[in-house]
């Protein structure tokens, strides 16, 4: 095996790909060949480093120097100055305010993060299973198969306090237990990778950056609940995730980590990769099951729950990508270790996609219970362009809209529930004071009116009616009765919608009405939109 004295990591995640990272990578390989440095330098294409705003990012080890916004034209200078002479190209280092850093892990952006789920993302080559193995990939599975009974695995997951990371936050261990105890010979494990929540790309970046951790999590889940077959349903738009995951499954089979008699334990497990076809509602677990069966992705009535009546009516465990990414580390390090991270009532970490009016947009992982302010100001780098913080929406478009008085709120499942929001899928949209909440409500409701599958009346009609009411308010012709109607409709939808989609549409609506009530009031009875956004937007539409 050849040893290279230096490894050059470059992001090949899809958030960097659109920034010409492909051209950067090919130019780098070419330059290294031209200068005859192939024996010394190994180029590795990794997953996302998280600081997507600064991409494409390149890291040179062993020095650990991080370069940001690298373009193909920068390659010659990097090769001549850094690779050949060992000098840092300072103009490409990360700068944030007055902070300039050689190593990104030493910046505020990384210092407040805690990487469990993303431990390998941006460090390993996701297309090479051995790099995963080097970083303890499949060690959790090996330990489970070697030393633990299925019941003991479930007990460990239960004791860890891990809650589902897909949106609903249901305790993972209990879900596993229900599936284990459900009668039936044939059971299934399904990984929900139909990530469609606006503002969220964490699952995609995990799948692209460390697919083996998901395979491992699914196999452990299969062993625990008594399933020999798993499916992963990946959003159809995520072509790179689909390709990387298929490749990872093939490698795991080749290495004997999937298939018959895994590691000589007598346990069999296989995974089939399926592609979605463009439907937000399929992120809802029962809609996803229908879609896997080749049908329209319409949600089913619950109960019966999938743990008893899932795929083709068999007991089925459905977990989100991020939930499964926690399983390997929990089994390796134990429930107590996991509980030592995060807050007592909500252990562990959470991966967020930071978007909107914030300096460091990208992918982050923080301990549960960190305050919103720490995320926005320290990790996110604050609000750019001299504007001020106005609103943060947690949990994606179906999450709640929080205001400046919530900045010191601990971010975890129970604390967000207290203020009427949710952790959801981990989108965090930050909005500055140049934007109008009524206008944003129009955007949210347009999305829901389009994505409602139309099966149940409260959601089908409710989303459209809410959209009309908000349009009316934005146009200046709304009245206090319209606000009242929005509240009433929202409550009805929460109580009577068939699935999580219709039940959570009211979350942004009601939190906006609660925390930005004055702004809605200003728009009524011919009143003006203080930011001027609504008048312009409505004129554009009419």
């Amino acid at each position, binding site marked *: 095996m050849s040893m290279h004295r230096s*490894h050059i990591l470059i992001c090949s995640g899809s958030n960097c790909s659109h920034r010409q990272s492909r051209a950067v990578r090919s130019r780098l390989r070419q330059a290294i060949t031209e200068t005859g440095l192939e024996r010394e330098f190994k180029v590795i294409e990794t997953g996302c480093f998280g600081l997507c705003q600064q991409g494409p990012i390149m890291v040179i080890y062993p020095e650990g120097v991080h370069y940001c916004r690298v373009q193909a034209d920068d390659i010659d200078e990097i090769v001549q100055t850094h690779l050949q002479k*060992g000098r840092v190209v300072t103009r490409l280092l990360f700068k944030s305010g007055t902070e300039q850093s050689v190593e990104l892990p030493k910046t505020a952006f990384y210092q407040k993060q805690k990487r469990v789920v993303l431990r390998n993302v941006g460090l390993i080559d996701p297309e090479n299973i051995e790099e995963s193995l080097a970083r303890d990939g*499949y060690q959790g599975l090996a330990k489970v198969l070697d030393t633990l009974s299925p019941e003991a695995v479930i007990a460990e997951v239960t004791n860890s306090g891990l809650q589902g990371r897909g949106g609903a936050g249901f305790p993972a261990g209990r879900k596993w237990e229900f599936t284990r105890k459900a009668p039936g010979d044939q059971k299934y494990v399904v990984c929900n990778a139909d990530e469609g929540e606006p503002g969220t790309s964490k699952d995609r970046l995990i799948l692209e950056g460390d697919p083996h951790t998901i395979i491992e999590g699914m196999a452990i889940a299969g062993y625990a609940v008594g399933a020999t077959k798993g499916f992963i349903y990946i959003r159809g738009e995520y072509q790179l995730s689909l390709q990387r995951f298929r490749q990872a499954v093939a490698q795991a089979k080749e290495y*004997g*980590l999937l298939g018959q008699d895994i*590691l000589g334990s007598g346990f069999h497990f296989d995974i089939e990769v399926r592609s979605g076809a463009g439907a937000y509602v399929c992120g809802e677990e029962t809609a996803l099951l229908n879609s896997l069966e080749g049908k329209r992705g319409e949600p089913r009535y619950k109960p019966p729950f999938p743990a008893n009546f899932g795929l083709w009516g068999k007991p089925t465990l459905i977990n989100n990508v991020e939930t499964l990414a926690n399983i390997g580390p929990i089994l390796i390090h134990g429930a107590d270790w996991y509980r030592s991270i995060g807050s007592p009532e909500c252990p562990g970490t959470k991966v967020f996609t930071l978007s909107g009016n914030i300096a460091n947009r990208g992918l982050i992982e923080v301990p549960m219970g960190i305050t919103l302010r720490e995320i926005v100001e320290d990790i996110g780098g604050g609000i750019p362009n001299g504007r001020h913080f106005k609103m943060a929406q947690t949990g994606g478009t179906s999450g709640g809209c929080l205001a400046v008085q919530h900045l010191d709120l601990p971010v975890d499942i129970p604390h967000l529930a207290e203020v009427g929001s949710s952790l959801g899928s981990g989108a965090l949209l930050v909005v500055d004071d140049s934007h109008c909440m009524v206008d944003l409500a129009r955007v949210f409701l347009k999305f829901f009116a389009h994505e409602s599958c139309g099966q149940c009346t409260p959601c089908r009609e409710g989303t459209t009616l809410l959209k009309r009411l908000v349009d009316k308010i934005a146009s200046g012709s709304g009245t206090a009765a319209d606000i009242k109607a929005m509240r009433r409709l929202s409550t009805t939808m929460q109580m009577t919608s068939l699935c999580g989609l219709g039940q959570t549409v009211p979350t942004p609506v009601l939190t906006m009405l609660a925390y930005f009530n004055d702004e809605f009031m200003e728009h009524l009875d011919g009143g003006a939109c203080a930011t001027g956004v609504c008048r312009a937007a409505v004129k554009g539409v009419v």
Partner: protein
Amino acid sequence: MGQSMKSMQELEAIRERARKAMQVRQNQEGGPVISVAMGTCGIAKGARDVMMALVDEAAKRGLDSVVVTQSGCAGYCEHEPMIKVQLPHQDAVYYGSLDERKARDVVARHLVQGEIANDYVLQLPGGEPLA
């Protein structure tokens, strides 16, 4: 290099092999660091061959925690190729006028046996060792 594993021992063996290949990327804070001066002068006098010899010798001897890195010209072009060996909690030692053979010797004596290879230590004009 795929191989279907059938036991925990095989998994362990592959993990060890894979770890070595990735060692360069692990956080080496606090471990031994050899930095090679790679200015134009150093490269012209063979610094690159010295560096490759250091990497190769460290790998052969299983010194996984040693980081071989590079720096710019230190200003003593006369004595290139030169390197700095920094062991944890010790003063850095500078070696000069190296070649491949001497570089391998430095690894064997300084890093393995823990003795400074005095005959290659860089001498300042006054006879003082550079520190």
